[in-house]
């Protein structure tokens, strides 16, 4: 039935609750690490960058939580296609924040390196002992590293289950965080051995990683905007779902040939199924309409993500560009 609000199957709903809990857990753990980092930051550029990077990894889960609030709202007069795409907006937020801040951090670190600014790292008082701040930094970085790895491991299976690209990207980002922390630890160790440039160099490496995360999110949001055919989770390869729908449509008794185009629409997949009905002069318009409606419902059963499929009877498939799966579209003439 076309125009209905998308609903998650029961099993997926449970996974979504888990995803939401994980998002809250991420925010809390990341902010706890960020707070500790803030107190031992000193004048270390690597520490400052690791801190910003840590705070930034709390942005995607926050954006995801916001998107989850909106995406299942029913369609309205102003937004007749519903709010499913809010997940892409959360990618957009992540992409812009990470890219802009990442580039700024990179500039900041490189300029410190060029100007040969040496980091001053003094001492702190801990449990009545005086301790070089660098050692405290390393301890906090190790904590932050463990958090990243833990979150990455927890998120990955949920992302897979939900076919959730945002969550998958988040899990990847968490897993990649260990490199930032390792870089910061190496930077601080270099400073401990009297190599002042280790600090800014580590900071530059971390900023580069933030920029890369931003770049990946930009790519994802551009693909979403371009109505890319569904891709497999955690990869670039196209899914074979359009072919599956096409074959299912062609198995309908009244259909002679079919062509399908699908796009990811947030967590759902929407698209068009063009069908050429068998030449049957006896088929009335009413019968055809009934066929089309039941056909759409039947095709939507193929995968829980399929939603709002439009079944469109046509006379020829050749006139439709680019509905033919497996055949490359003709180049646009200039």
């Amino acid at each position, binding site marked *: 039935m076309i125009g209905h609000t998308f609903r998650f199957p029961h099993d997926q709903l449970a996974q979504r609750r888990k995803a939401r809990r994980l998002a809250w857990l991420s925010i809390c753990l990341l902010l706890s690490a960020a707070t500790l980092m803030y107190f031992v930051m000193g004048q270390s550029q690597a520490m400052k960058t690791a801190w910003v990077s840590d705070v930034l990894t709390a942005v995607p889960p926050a954006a995801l939580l916001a998107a989850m609030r909106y995406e299942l709202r029913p369609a309205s007069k102003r937004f007749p296609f519903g709010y499913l795409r809010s997940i892409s907006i959360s990618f957009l937020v992540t992409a812009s924040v990470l890219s802009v801040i990442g580039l700024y951090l990179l500039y900041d670190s490189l300029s410190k390196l060029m100007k040969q600014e040496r980091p*001053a790292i*003094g001492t702190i008082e801990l449990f009545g002992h005086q301790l070089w701040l660098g050692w405290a930094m390393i301890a906090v970085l190790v904590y932050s590293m463990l958090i990243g790895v833990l979150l990455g491991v927890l998120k990955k299976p949920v992302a897979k289950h939900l076919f959730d690209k945002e969550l998958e990207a988040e899990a990847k980002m968490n897993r990649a965080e260990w490199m930032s922390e390792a870089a910061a630890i190496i930077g601080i160790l270099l400073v401990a051995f009297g190599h002042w440039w280790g600090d800014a160099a580590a900071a530059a490496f971390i900023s580069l990683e933030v920029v890369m995360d931003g770049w990946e999110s930009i790519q994802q949001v551009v693909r979403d905007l371009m109505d890319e055919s569904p891709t497999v989770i955690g990869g670039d390869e196209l899914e074979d779902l359009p072919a599956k729908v096409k074959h299912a449509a062609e198995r309908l008794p009244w259909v002679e040939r079919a062509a399908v185009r699908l796009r990811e629409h947030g967590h759902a997949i929407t698209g068009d199924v063009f069908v050429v009905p068998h030449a049957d002069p006896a088929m009335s318009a009413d019968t055809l309409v009934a066929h089309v409606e039941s056909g759409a419902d039947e095709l939507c059963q193929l995968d829980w993500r399929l939603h709002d499929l439009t079944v469109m009877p046509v006379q020829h498939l050749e006139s439709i560009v680019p509905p033919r799966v497996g055949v490359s579209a003709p180049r646009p003439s200039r």
Partner: protein
Amino acid sequence: MYHRRPPALSRSTFVLALATLIGACDLPRDAGGTLNRVRHGTMRVGVVTNPPWANDSGAAASGVEAQLAKELATRLDAKVTWVRRPEAEMLLALHERELELVIGGLTSSVPWQKEVAFTRSYYTDTIEVGAPPGSVPPGALAGRSVAVERGSAVAAELRTQGATPLPVDDVTKATGLVAAPTWRLARMGWSTGGVVLQQEQHVLAAPPGENAWLVEIERLLREHKSEIPTLLRANR
């Protein structure tokens, strides 16, 4: 319930173990080898004249921070060369490692944070309003006139609290309420009403990147932290 070890004990054991480890490795090290040069060598100390923190008294410097610098030199078997130049010039020289230390009442709020390495604060200077002996210090300042050193930023704070600042050249000669650091009020024998106008974190300045040196200075400051109020009252 299963207890492995009291957490406080394991924590301090951990810190001790870490400290031993670090001591053994002689870390952190200076990027420019300052500590090694100062030890059995010369320590160039820039002095900003700012009593009672540091004062120029002929060949050597005096004051609380000059005493601390001398103590540091004694400990490292170093000779002190006192340098007297404008504050900005000395801090720039410090940035280039042409000096080893700058003293003279620097606080963490001066805008040199990013150019040089400030030590951890070794003393918090509190500026309060004091009343002469025999009178009761006020709990609120609205509508009161308070004597304050001419050109001091504290006057602005007095105004925001509704008081009228009376700029004077020497607060010790004032007869009514005065705004002054607590050590000075104590020295004058005046009492305070607990109205805090300003708090300044006092620091010393070292060259940036010389972290072994910075740790050495901070160790000294930590050991002498408790004596600072006494020193302040004694130094004139």
